[in-house]
């Protein structure tokens, strides 16, 4: 009986791993298609708010990250950020993050725009596509596991495949929790 419980546990783990990576959410429904026009820097909201999306749904899905890669070209992020090395815009594949490396922060960068030329996509593209772009951007500095991050593209090889990149360590990576004040 121990044997079958163990097998069951292993099967559940396997199912978890495969399920996430191969997940293809094609129609995220009306909640996901809500036009992204809000910032999410903290959890305090006046009045009600939509539940925060589960970022792992995007960062764990190879399909979502590959969609992010497609949108990165389609929405012309390459025009300023090139293939991650940066040109007019800052590089996205290094460990320097002007506005923070956390997914929610990258989300608001895209949605709100930023000084010195980052356009605001708020009100233009659906929520779920911004999250897909966020997941792809994070993969550009090697933050995602290699079975989820995109492999080499069928274009001119100007950079290593995202899955083969060394994981960069942004300075805000291991934030220490703020200590509660002692009485």
């Amino acid at each position, binding site marked *: 009986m121990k044997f079958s419980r163990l097998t069951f546990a292993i099967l559940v783990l396997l199912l978890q791993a495969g399920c996430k990576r191969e997940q293809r959410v094609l129609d995220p429904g009306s909640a996901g298609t809500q036009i992204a026009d809000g910032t999410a820097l903290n959890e305090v909201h006046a009045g009600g708010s939509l539940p925060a999306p589960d970022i792992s749904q995007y960062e764990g899905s190879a399909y979502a990250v590959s969609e992010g890669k497609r949108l990165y070209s389609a929405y012309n992020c390459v025009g300023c950020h090139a293939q991650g090395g940066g040109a007019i815009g800052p590089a996205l594949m290094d460990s320097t993050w002007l506005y923070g490396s956390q997914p929610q922060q990258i989300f608001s960068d895209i949605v709100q725009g930023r000084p010195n030329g980052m356009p605001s996509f708020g009100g*233009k593209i659906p929520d779920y596509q911004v999250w897909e772009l966020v997941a792809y951007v994070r993969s550009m500095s090697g933050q995602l596991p290699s079975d989820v991050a995109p492999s080499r593209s069928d274009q001119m090889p100007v950079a290593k495949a995202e899955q083969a990149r060394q994981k960069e360590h942004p300075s805000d990576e291991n934030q220490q929790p703020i200590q509660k004040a002692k009485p």
Partner: protein
Amino acid sequence: MSLLAAIPGFPSNQTSLNPAGPAAAHIEHTFALIFWITATVYFITLAVLMYFVWSRRWTLALAPIPQPTSDASDRLATRAVAAAVAVTVLLLFVMLISSFVTSHRLGKMNDQQALTINVYGHQWWWEIQYPNEAEPYRMVTTANEIHVPIGTPIRIHGTSRDVIHSFWAPNIQGKRDLLPGYNTDVLMQVDKAGRWRGQCAEYCGMQHAHMSFYIVAEPQQDFDNWMSAQMQPSVVPGNIQAMHGQQVFLSHACVLCHTIRGTTAGSHVGPDLTHLASRSTIAAGMLPNTVGNLGGWILNAQALKPGSRMPPNQISGPDLQDLLAYLETLK
């Protein structure tokens, strides 16, 4: 192929057995020859087989083993088998020669003053370009619908922008794969007027099933009218509603992917919409181009064609109405 014409539903506008051009007609001749020869051979062979099985049948308990065979019957059998093989070789040669003749005819089709049309396969739509050598900036770009004049040689120059697709309009021509990294040329000609339907014939991903196109064959005059209309940039919106609709178009995500010549929208990610209203279908031949379908497609394409590249859009009711009114003016 009058035999197959008896089947209900024949003829149709997506079948190789209703040729609308010389290429499909040549192919159909070889098809018919092979059909009659193979059908005859099949029935004769099986009739012979069943005759012998029936006339020589026995039960296990009675027949001694092994069955002694006489030299005479073996000699007869040898001659029969040799004759059958000889007939097989002969018939195969006949069909082979017919096939070579048709291939030769297809290769020698008239290409004098052929009209060149570029076809680019995308996941999951067809980008169509009519290059204009004299005035390159007056190139016509459209999607999923090809207009051709009747009786004129057409050179389809094709490649793929992503994965392997296959350009196939059975009434007109055999298929040709569109391969990334390769440019391919295929000659075709349409002799019968009509709307001939084609479909992608190489599995190309999630929505391969919904990647169709139409070839509209029309008299030269109609074709010239169509071409000159297509060369024009988009009309300036004529009423308030259409003007507001254009504003909706330009201020939403539409401009990120689509081009409407005559406006500032110039992206080449998705189909060119300059003359959207002149097309009879949307979504690569999947839906008739009506206001209702267009509205549904814009609001949530994923519900209709899940996995396609068109994202859902949140546009308010009145804005959508105005947008549709504008798009309807893009004839």
